[in-house]
């Protein structure tokens, strides 16, 4: 990504493509997966064959339909309370989508803004923000999240805010480091001698150049956030049961894994994996799209 003198210079006839982001080479598989998850989340009420929160104790631990003992009524089996796993996965998409994406974006916006301010302004602003960040990072993330959840009480939106508050420091760190090197770059100096104010420089010259790193970090954080949400649920301070969440299903199914009830963990685990992987691939594509130099190669 460095903009050095040996960058490839294309002849004008080749390079006169429009500056807008084209959608031609959108990575198709991740988009389909994310679209499916989003579709499930939106139309969960229509799609789910059963009520995800009500089970029947006479129908506990049914395996998926293709295994011996499974039946068509519960396509992906039932859990320890006899609730339909497919329905819970469909409704769980709602929680994971909302919690995962909003928490990552919330943390990203807070962390990026503070990171830019700290890195560019330096001095006491930097000291203040980075000491807070250090102190914040010194707290174990999960304990801190439990502490916050205990104060505000568990609900889905509280979890979003808590996860955002716990994880913004990661962005602040990465972005600040990036800004420290950016502000020594010649084009930032040129903006200074051209009379741009600090605000203008941060907004026009620094921010667009750190967005790439923030996006890459966000795609990685998505997995962390979903797993943390699962841990919180497991500890009873996350999305409150019986509301289905993939993380919660994963931790609930853990005991069953030893005795052969694999579908209780493997299926929500696959869902989490597919969502995180898709987000990673899409983030990678977006990163390339946002860089005009990579865009045309």
């Amino acid at each position, binding site marked *: 990504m460095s903009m050095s003198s040996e960058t490839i210079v294309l002849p004008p006839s080749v390079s006169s493509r429009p500056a807008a982001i084209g959608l031609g080479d959108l990575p198709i598989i991740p988009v389909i997966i994310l679209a499916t998850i989003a579709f499930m989340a939106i139309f969960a009420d229509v799609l789910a064959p059963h009520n995800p929160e009500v089970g029947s104790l006479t129908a506990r631990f049914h395996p998926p339909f293709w295994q011996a003992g499974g039946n068509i009524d519960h396509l992906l089996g039932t859990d320890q309370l006899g609730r339909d796993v497919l329905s819970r996965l469909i409704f769980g998409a709602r929680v994971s989508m909302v919690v995962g994406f909003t928490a990552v974006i919330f943390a990203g916006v807070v962390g990026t803004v503070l990171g830019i301010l700290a890195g560019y302004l330096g001095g006491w602003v930097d000291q203040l923000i980075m000491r807070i960040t250090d102190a914040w990072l010194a707290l174990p993330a999960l304990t801190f999240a439990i502490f916050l959840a205990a104060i505000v009480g568990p609900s889905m939106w509280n979890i979003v805010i808590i996860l955002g508050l716990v994880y913004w420091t990661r962005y602040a760190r990465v972005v600040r480091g990036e800004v420290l090197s950016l502000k020594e770059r010649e084009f930032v100096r040129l903006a200074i001698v051209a009379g741009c104010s600090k605000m203008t420089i941060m907004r026009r010259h620094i921010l667009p*150049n750190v967005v790439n790193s923030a996006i890459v970090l966000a795609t990685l954080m998505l997995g962390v956030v979903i797993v943390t949400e699962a841990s919180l649920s497991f500890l009873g301070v996350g999305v409150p049961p019986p509301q289905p969440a993939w993380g919660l299903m994963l931790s609930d199914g853990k005991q069953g894994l030893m005795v052969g009830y694999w579908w209780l963990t493997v299926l929500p685990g696959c869902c989490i994996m597919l969502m995180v992987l898709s987000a990673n691939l899409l983030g990678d594509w977006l990163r390339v799209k946002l860089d005009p*130099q990579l865009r045309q190669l």
Partner: protein
Amino acid sequence: MSNSTLSSVSSEPARGAAAVAARPLLEIDNLSTHYVSARGSRVVRAVDDVSLRIKPGETLGIVGESGSGKSTLALSILRVLPTAAQIVSGQMWFEGEDLVRKSDAEMRHVRGKRIAMILQDPMASLNPLFTIGNQVGEPIRVHEGADRADAWRRARALLKSVHIPSPETRVTQFPHEMSGGMRQRIVGAIGISCEPRLLIADEPTTSLDLTIQAQYLNLLRELQREHGLALIFITHNLGIVAKMCDKLVVMYAGRVVESGPVARIFNAPAHPYTQALLNSIPRMSDNRRRLTAIEGQPPDLSALPRGCAFAARCPAAFDRCHNEAPPEFNLDGGRTARCWLASVAVQSGAA
């Protein structure tokens, strides 16, 4: 030694002698910029007691070796020094206003609008994420509040004036799509976008190959003629000075050791350092086996010697040079030199 060519006009301090008809555009008086270490224990006198003046439309060359304070001087003029550096004394009169006493907000309206600057590495001076039109138009939008369409229209005209072919398509392209020479000219276009009165070029051609260098220098001259720009040209290439500049300031260890019209200094340098600089230019015609170099190292700017900073390396140094720093002496033809030899010439001429 060429002392015989010197004669005196006056022995007053340099300030009073420079009574000229045209009012200087920029008049720097006794400017000192120091870098101070965090605990204040080390003070580096990067720019020390520098005075110079430049008239509208004139080209002033500043030469000196690395670390002589050329770039710090340029940054001082725009007041964009790193945090460790401070202007500790002096005045900078620009169009009747003292830049040293301006607030940061006021300085922002000077930068890019009235005094523009081209940086040492114009190749890296463009933001890789924005189109050329955006970047050339940026100062116009910042300083004149022009809207996007207007800024782009003017950006196209500016690209045309720096001889970029098909500016209509170029404005929509990104820096990596341009050749080095083009990017350089684009940086030039950004420099003149708000029609400044003074353009400071800090070694703008060092990263270019020779053919493009010549092209770029011609372009700068052309822009200077068209816009009546005053140009401060910082370089260590004396060939460029000879080609481009009307007046020359030679800096050594943060001080101006010699200044005056280029032709006079080249014909008869008054300061031994200037003589040494001119002698170290390699020439095809002479048959010397080795190039002449200036022996020794420049002094540590945080521990300057008591006497003349150049004394330790000076072939003509005598006792006084080691014990007493020479002031700036006025010589004939608007020249000054910071050298006791010049004072000898002044006195013998007056006697």
